[in-house]
């Protein structure tokens, strides 16, 4: 009997990918683990647009008329604040989740572009410290590889409370990526699946974080800015508490933020989108009269110069890129297709960082695969991407009449959807309506 395709009714609730996942759970008895950030559609910067120049607002000429992009981070307490040429930094990603070539490529590119990179849940590698002129050193719940020498040779310190992909979850690295070198850095047996703490071992809560930040300052003689990184959840409270605990800079990572290995349910169902998180963070900073005194770096789904410009317009001091940086290095590029297929995926859909078999040599410890990403070449790609992003931001900022990208403001934007208007606190295009604020 032939099947009449007209009678095939897909279930929205039990869609093909959901059916496949339940079958897999029944086979394996474990949650799905993957890399990448939230894949589902969310209200985002895409739903905001800029109001360019018009009869009442005049643009700046490209190239000739200055549109500055520099930013200073951490002047609140540190003797040596961070000075960046562009308001785009590279987010914390571990050596372990990434290979050494990728870390080096990112470091070199950041140095060339005048910005910073960040270590991750495995500690600082020589490659990164040598290649990256401005290096932010993370202090995570796991404390893998943490030591006072690296703390002192870092340029800033980032205390990680959480990340957007999994606020409330700890780091994860599967056995196939725990090579001798990675194991040595993390003090773990080779080849085991790393279990990570979700809380710091020696403090819990902002009142005790205050004391921890004080200790980190004491050890580094108050030289370096202290960042506090949070995944976006109860952002208004978190930002207030981070400021009071002594943070010089707040790094806020929305649910679109990436990961190399996390439970899929965690990525998709915990945390709020970057869009409302930025608004809440800036409102809180303004409430505390700390906006621009404590800087805000925003991450989680930053992809284009438009995203950067919109984040800045909402009040961020800078953005941080993670997934996008890896994409610039070649993530999901349609090359080495057989290797994608071997993972059960295709270019454009791959989120298999957790396997360690990254076809383009980024999130792998396999020398054969890492060889596909040459650090100098990767650095060039990344540098180009950062340059392009910056040019895009400047283009939009000039169109709005700004001589410094920090002069972008929420009033330069309107929203295309009601959700985005409510979340971002900007009016729905063509109206004065900001849901929740005015006009019912």
């Amino acid at each position, binding site marked *: 009997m032939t099947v009449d395709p007209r009678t095939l009714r897909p279930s929205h609730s039990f869609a093909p990918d959901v059916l496949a996942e339940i079958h897999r759970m029944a086979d394996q008895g474990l949650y799905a683990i993957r890399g990448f950030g939230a894949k589902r559609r969310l209200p985002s910067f895409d739903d905001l647009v800029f109001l360019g120049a018009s009869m009442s607002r005049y643009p700046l000429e490209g190239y000739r008329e200055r549109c500055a992009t520099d930013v200073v981070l951490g002047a609140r307490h540190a003797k040596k604040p961070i000075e960046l040429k562009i308001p785009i930094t590279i987010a914390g990603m571990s050596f372990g989740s990434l290979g050494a070539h990728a870390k080096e490529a990112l470091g070199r590119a950041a140095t060339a572009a005048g910005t910073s990179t960040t270590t991750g849940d495995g500690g600082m590698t020589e490659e990164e410290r040598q290649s990256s002129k401005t290096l932010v050193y993370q202090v995570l719940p796991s404390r893998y590889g943490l030591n006072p020498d690296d703390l002192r040779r870092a340029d800033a310190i980032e205390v990680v409370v959480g990340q957007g992909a999994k606020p409330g979850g700890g780091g994860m690295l599967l056995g196939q990526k725990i090579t001798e070198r990675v194991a040595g850095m993390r003090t773990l047996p080779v080849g085991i699946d790393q279990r990570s703490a979700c*809380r710091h071992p020696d403090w819990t*809560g902002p*009142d005790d974080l*205050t004391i921890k930040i004080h200790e980190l300052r004491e050890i580094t003689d108050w030289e370096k800015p202290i960042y506090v990184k949070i995944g976006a959840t109860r952002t208004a*409270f978190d930002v*207030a508490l981070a400021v009071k605990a002594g943070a010089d800079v707040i790094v806020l990572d929305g649910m679109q933020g990436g990961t190399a290995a996390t439970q899929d349910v965690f990525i998709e169902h915990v945390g709020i989108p970057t869009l409302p998180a930025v608004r809440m963070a800036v409102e809180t900073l303004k409430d505390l009269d700390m906006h621009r005194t404590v800087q805000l770096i925003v991450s989680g789904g930053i992809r284009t110069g438009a995203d950067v410009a919109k984040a800045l317009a909402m009040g961020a001091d800078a953005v941080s890129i993670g997934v996008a940086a890896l994409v610039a290095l070649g993530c999901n590029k349609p090359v080495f297709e057989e290797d994608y297929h071997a993972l059960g995926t295709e270019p454009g859909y791959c989120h298999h960082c957790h396997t360690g078999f990254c076809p383009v040599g980024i999130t792998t410890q396999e020398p054969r695969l890492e060889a596909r990403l040459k650090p100098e070449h990767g650095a060039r790609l990344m540098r180009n991407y950062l340059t392009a992003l910056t040019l895009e931001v400047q283009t939009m900022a000039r169109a709005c009449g700004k001589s410094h990208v920090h002069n972008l403001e929420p009033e330069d934007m309107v929203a295309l959807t009601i959700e985005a208007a409510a979340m971002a606190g900007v009016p729905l295009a063509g109206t004065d309506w900001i849901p929740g604020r005015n006009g019912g």
Partner: protein
Amino acid sequence: MCGIVGLFLKNPALRPKLGGHFATMLIGMSERGPDSAGIAVYHDPAGPGASKLTLFHADGGYPWREVGGQLSEALDAEVDVIHKANHAVLRVEASAEITRAWLAAHHPEVRVMGYGTTMEVYKDMGPPAEVAAKYGLAEMAGSHAVGHTRMATESAVTTEHSHPFTAAADMCLVHNGSLSNHNRLRDWLGRRGLEFETDNDSEVAARYFAYRMSEGASLDEAMEAGLKDLDGFYTFTMGTNDGFAVLRDPIACKPAVLAETDDWVAMASEFRSLAHLPGVAEATIWEPAPGVVYTWSLEGTA
């Protein structure tokens, strides 16, 4: 988010100096809680049939004496008013219950910070040292005191979310930590007739304990019940008319230190608040064990 302190004087000879020692303890917790402070002091009991209430109004010029006069007339009872900054302590020759009912009906703009026979509660914005000075804490005498310093999440100039929370006569609670099931508990208590002033988790804990005690549980039993019903991270210090209790949750991620001599028992979130107490060098110093209720009673002391 905050620091908590408690001081309980076993030796009556020290009671004139309660405030002096306690102010130092409170100020020691300023870094944990720079934004506001709250204190409950137990002293000067009202006589039989009488009550003491601490009231608050944000306007320092609020006509307390006038209100006191109205109250006196309405209840046909003597009323004594002591005005301190944003607070007023009323001594009334009538029960706290009747007084509170009258206030609720005639002056709902006044907030009742504490009531009973012995306890006075002061909660105000500003660094702990300022709050202590504003209310003359250092000069107060008394048998015991419980205090809290707060790291605020909201900028509004209000003490609504401040501890200590009062849920029964002469009963107050301070809390360091964060509960995770307080919303459902609030509903549950609400259906049993309790009313809440804030959405604060610590208020839920205070009213929960008061509820258990109103149903016949002893202080110990109420706190034991809390171990089962309250979820989250906490160090609690509770004050009652004649006692003082400390409890940490079983996971114990929030700090607590206890110190005891023949003359006093003190608790604080950090040792540095205890460092200046007389005789602390010889004191027994220990951490309350997780999930264990510690109580002290004035009974047996003079």
